[in-house]
């Protein structure tokens, strides 16, 4: 998967867990929490969905890496670059 693919995966997950949000204007360099109504349970949903969809294991100490789209994709890139994107 490319960085763009990973971004799409994260966007898909966000669309599921925050269905009331408009994600079309999401700014990659701004923290999710500063532009979306996400709480700690939602971040755990992101972790769980990555585990379910791609078997990616994210240790708790790395959760801060999921702060923004930019930091999330750059954190996930080495973990997901060899994986095939699954169509959701």
């Amino acid at each position, binding site marked *: 998967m490319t960085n763009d693919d990973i971004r799409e995966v994260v966007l898909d997950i966000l669309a*599921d867990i*925050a269905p009331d949000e408009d994600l079309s204007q999401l700014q990659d360099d701004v923290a999710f929490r500063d532009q979306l109504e996400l709480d700690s349970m939602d971040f755990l949903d992101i972790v769980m969905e990555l585990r379910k969809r791609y078997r990616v294991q994210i240790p708790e100490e790395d959760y801060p890496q999921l702060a923004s789209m930019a930091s999330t994709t750059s954190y996930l890139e080495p973990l997901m670059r060899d994986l095939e994107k699954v169509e959701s």
Partner: protein
Amino acid sequence: MITQYSNSHIPGERPPLMQRIVITGIGVTAPNGNDLQAYRASLLDGRSGVAPYEIRYFGKTLAGVCDFDARKYQSRKDIRRGTRAGSVGVYAASEAVADSGLVWEKINPARVGIYVGVTEHGNVETENEIYEIKRYNYDTAFWSHHHNPRTVANNPAGEIALNMGIIGPHYTIGAACAAGNAGLIQGAQMLMLGECDVALAGGVSESIHTFGIFASFKSQGALAEHDEPARASRPFDLQRNGIVVAEGGGIFVLERYEDAAARGAKIYGEIVGYAMNTDATDFVLPNPDRQAQCVQLALRHARLNPEDIDIVSTHATGTTTGDAQECQALRQIFGNSAKTYFNNTKSFIGHSMGAAGALELAGNLPAFTDGVCHATINVDELDPDCALPGLVTNQPRELGDVRYILNNSFGMLGINSVVIIKKTSGQV
């Protein structure tokens, strides 16, 4: 030999209610109506809410299914995060408050209490999670972090509190199928104790979303089957063959009479008596003597005689034994009352479990104004064991002035509950 008990209170000698508690708002979602007017119209028009239904593992069956719009009061995210029972509760509670005419912004949220009866809670969510982790070879690393907040026993009441910003007490009352009445009784008691000024009380059910409840009733030989769904729930009929499981919710706004009168609220009725007792005889089978005692306790609590009751809303679920036993209990009390009529709401909507007591009462309360006792439908051949003289079958009956309604609700492990509502001045 008469046992002398050290706690010498004689059943029935309870003091009368300390305060007058009235119903000032009603919110419902039933399989045949998503507000009181639509629900009442269905009951008077003979419209069933039972439909074909399919659930994982169990397969095709029948159920009372609600089609209320959860988005009316919840975001998509809250619906996803919460439970069906929570959505049912939020919908019914919000509708009840809207109906009550309370100016919600002016109500101190710390003085509102939420008391929601449930037959069970957590089965649906647990089954869902087990189904989900089956896809991952039962690896519990895939078990949702939402499981605990969804399955804590207070969940349906807590979701109402979260949604409506209520910061007074909230909890559920686990009372099997007596839970709707139990929620109402709890709400009334908390108002009497001064624990709140407004009580949101009643019951909810999400039970059609757990395959276990269908499978268990089936194994027990107590799950209704019929080629025509609308004819499957048939209490008191000779061909009855079990329960139709239903979902739904009924939440009442309760207030002290003085508060309701001071704000000029419309009043649906006054809770003038209630009782709960226990069979202590069987896990499943009812005990008609204890049921009769419960009715008697409620009548004495209300300082009423059987012939004062105009309508008895029966609990009967459509099982061979249970229906006949309730009739046996009712004969003991109302055998000489020529002016008491009996109906059964489950014949329309199935058994809505934790919501049953509340929904069945709600469906009857409009009789105070329209003077009509809705029927028990699907009685093609009345079981002689269930032939109560005042049983209203198949067609509604005009009674004229209805002053008292008595609502039965019984459940497994021998839990019995009875509530009596009186028509009041200021009646809507």
